[in-house]
């Protein structure tokens, strides 16, 4: 992969001519990953050794620096040793039918994945690996991300070659299967080797920056807080003289108190602005690092998404693996028309269960993507059914109850101990409770579901509406669940068995729930799982 740092949509190295013959000669023997991975391993352990070294140096005073250095060096050496051992014990073999990876320092683990089971190969480049032009290769099997086979750090040329090889082998295996059944799919799989496709969605710098603004985050304070905790375990902050702190506050803060009312207000505002600024800056930095060069393409293999500034990821998801879609937004960005689109599938996306496909886009940009995936966003003239009215009443009572209980408790305690606050202490939670009740009542209007010929759709939320769509054919089970209260009142929650995500519709009247279940089951039962496209047959 000839990607330069920061280049967007860079192409991949073309396959060397005659690569097929070359590869045939290479298969079958166990190979090691690139030796530079050991270097990356020790650099990471240096990274991990810095903080403990600093705190060890500071906390012991006197000969502290030497001790700190000693600690740092020790951690680095141990880390590098394990990295080297791990590298030596990791081998991979490209076989005739499968890929085999053996790893493990103390306990050996050998995993083999047949080519037919590999959905696609994705390449990932964390920052350190990018510096050395290495790439981490992941084989996606669609059985769930945690167990996916990963090879850390091959050279980028080797990684690309491996990817091509696996794709070839997989297409050959599929062709054979197709020929056995007499299907004429061979020609299509030949065409399916294309890498490039049409761009469905891309984010340029302006869009990423706007996105970053909406991702306001005070995470930096959480990080500082965490560091503080960590530091506290190394040396005692209680040892710091109180008088010193007082003097510092007096000297620095004294002029604030002298400023008078206007000055104080201005300083408070300045503080607030500073917090806003830090929050926005954090949001922008995190978003830029995550989404830089975001490109979503439709290739012959499926949806290909590339993004990332430091860690560059390149993932392909076959269209038929998409089980459902989710359209989310936030309370503020909804006002400006920004939505986020994710695909629900069994594959994992860097820890989250749904693949984010268009994190920040207008509806006009999202609709074509949804269409390509084979879904249809719900419109206004669907056969919408609302949640039960009794559900609305119960939800209002249940949610607001806690506020009123809090109001009563606050009122009683303040009446006992400080009667002058009773009025406010009771009125505050009470008002919040009323507000909550109002919002719940309003939210009921926007909580609805509908069935059409092929899909089931659910919408909920007022401030930030969330839409979920799933293909009826790809559901696996339907459950109608009722608690003691809902049994009394005649409504239920419908849980749909979706592969790779949750799809529940609460507050459905019982009759309607049974109707929904009957219709969905009718669709499901007509097609066996093995006939579903791409069910791994």
């Amino acid at each position, binding site marked *: 992969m000839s990607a330069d740092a920061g280049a967007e949509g860079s192409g991949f190295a073309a396959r060397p001519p005659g690569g097929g013959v070359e590869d045939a000669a290479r298969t079958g023997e166990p190979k090691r990953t690139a030796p530079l991975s050991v270097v990356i391993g020790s650099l990471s352990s240096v990274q991990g050794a810095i903080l403990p070294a600093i705190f060890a140096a500071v906390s012991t005073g006197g000969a502290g620096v030497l001790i700190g250095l000693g600690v740092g060096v020790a951690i680095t050496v141990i880390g590098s040793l394990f990295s080297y051992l791990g590298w030596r014990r990791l081998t991979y073999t490209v076989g005739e039918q499968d890929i085999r990876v053996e790893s493990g320092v103390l306990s050996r683990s050998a995993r083999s994945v047949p080519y037919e089971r590999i959905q696609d190969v994705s390449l990932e480049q964390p920052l350190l690996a990018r510096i050395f032009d290495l790439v981490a290769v992941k084989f996606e099997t669609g059985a769930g991300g945690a167990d996916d086979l990963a090879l850390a750090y091959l050279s980028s040329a080797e990684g690309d070659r491996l990817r091509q090889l696996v794709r070839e082998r997989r297409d050959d295996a599929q062709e054979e299967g197709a020929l056995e059944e007499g299907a004429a799919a061979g020609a299509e799989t030949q065409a399916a080797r294309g890498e490039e496709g049409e761009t469905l969605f891309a984010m340029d710098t302006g869009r990423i920056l706007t996105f970053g603004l909406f991702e306001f985050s005070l995470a930096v304070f959480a990080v500082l807080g965490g560091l503080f905790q960590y530091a506290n375990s190394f040396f005692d902050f209680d040892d710091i003289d109180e008088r010193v702190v007082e003097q510092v506050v007096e000297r620095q803060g004294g002029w604030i108190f002298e400023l008078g009312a206007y000055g104080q207000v201005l300083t408070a505002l300045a503080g607030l602005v500073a917090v806003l600024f830090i929050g926005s800056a954090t949001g922008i930095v995190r978003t830029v690092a995550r989404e830089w060069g975001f490109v979503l393409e439709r290739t012959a293999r499926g949806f290909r998404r590339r993004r990332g500034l430091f860690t560059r990821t390149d993932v392909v998801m076959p269209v038929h693996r998409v089980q459902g879609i989710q359209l989310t937004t936030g309370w503020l960005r909804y006002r400006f028309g920004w939505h986020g689109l994710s695909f629900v599938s069994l594959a994992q996306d860097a820890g989250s269960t749904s693949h984010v496909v268009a994190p920040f886009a207008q509806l006009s940009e999202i609709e074509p993507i949804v269409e390509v995936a084979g879904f249809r966003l719900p419109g206004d003239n669907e056969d919408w059914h609302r949640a039960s009215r009794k559900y609305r009443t119960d939800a209002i009572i249940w949610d607001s109850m806690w506020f009123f209980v809090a109001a009563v408790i606050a009122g009683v305690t303040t009446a006992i101990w400080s009667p002058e606050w009773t009025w406010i202490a009771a009125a505050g939670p009470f008002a919040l409770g009323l507000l909550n009740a109002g919002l719940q009542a309003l939210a009921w209007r926007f909580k609805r579901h509908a069935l059409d010929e092929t899909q089931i759709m659910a919408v909920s939320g007022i401030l930030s509406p969330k839409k979920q769509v799933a293909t009826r054919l790809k559901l696996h*089970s339907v459950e109608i669940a009722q608690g003691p209260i809902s049994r009394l009142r005649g409504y239920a929650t419908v849980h749909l068995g979706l592969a790779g995500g949750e799809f*529940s519709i609460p507050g459905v009247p019982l009759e309607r729930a049974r109707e929904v279940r009957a219709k969905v089951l009718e669709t499901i039962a007509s097609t066996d799982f093995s006939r579903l496209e791409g069910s791994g047959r």
Partner: protein
Amino acid sequence: MESTLPQTAPAGDKALPSDLVQPVDEGDELTQLHPGYRTVLRLQTILVFIPILIGALLLETALTGEQEVIPQGLIAGPLLVLAIILVIRLPQRRFAARGYQMSADRLRVVRGILWRSDTVVPFGRVQHIDVDQGPLERAFGIATMTLHTAGTHNASVDLPGLGEEHAREMREEIRAHIKRESL
């Protein structure tokens, strides 16, 4: 809404209708579980209570001793009464609250006293089937059948309290159906 499934047959011996075409319907009666399940539940409740009662007795002896801080049997007595009520009453209620309905192409499992859950799994979506027996279950001739699906919610649906022969028959039915459909 005609009911085409057999009514509750004699315990443990239910001949499965093999060419049933009607889908499961809400109004139809649910097939009850094997009564051995009730006995197993009772035994399990007893086993749970024994350590609790022993603990209560120990606590009492620790507290009373020579001084008679509390009268003898204050803790253990009510616990014993509670245990007896639970052992007699609760398993019967749990047994009655469960049921299932099996048709030609789907299985419906109902469970729960307070929190009722009514799940239907079509055979066309079953990934694999387990039939398990714990030691108590083996002693009374019952088994638990578990259907695994590819969905995240209800990835496994289990149906305890089936007669073991019956459970194996059901498993073969489901397997035959899957084999037929995937050919």
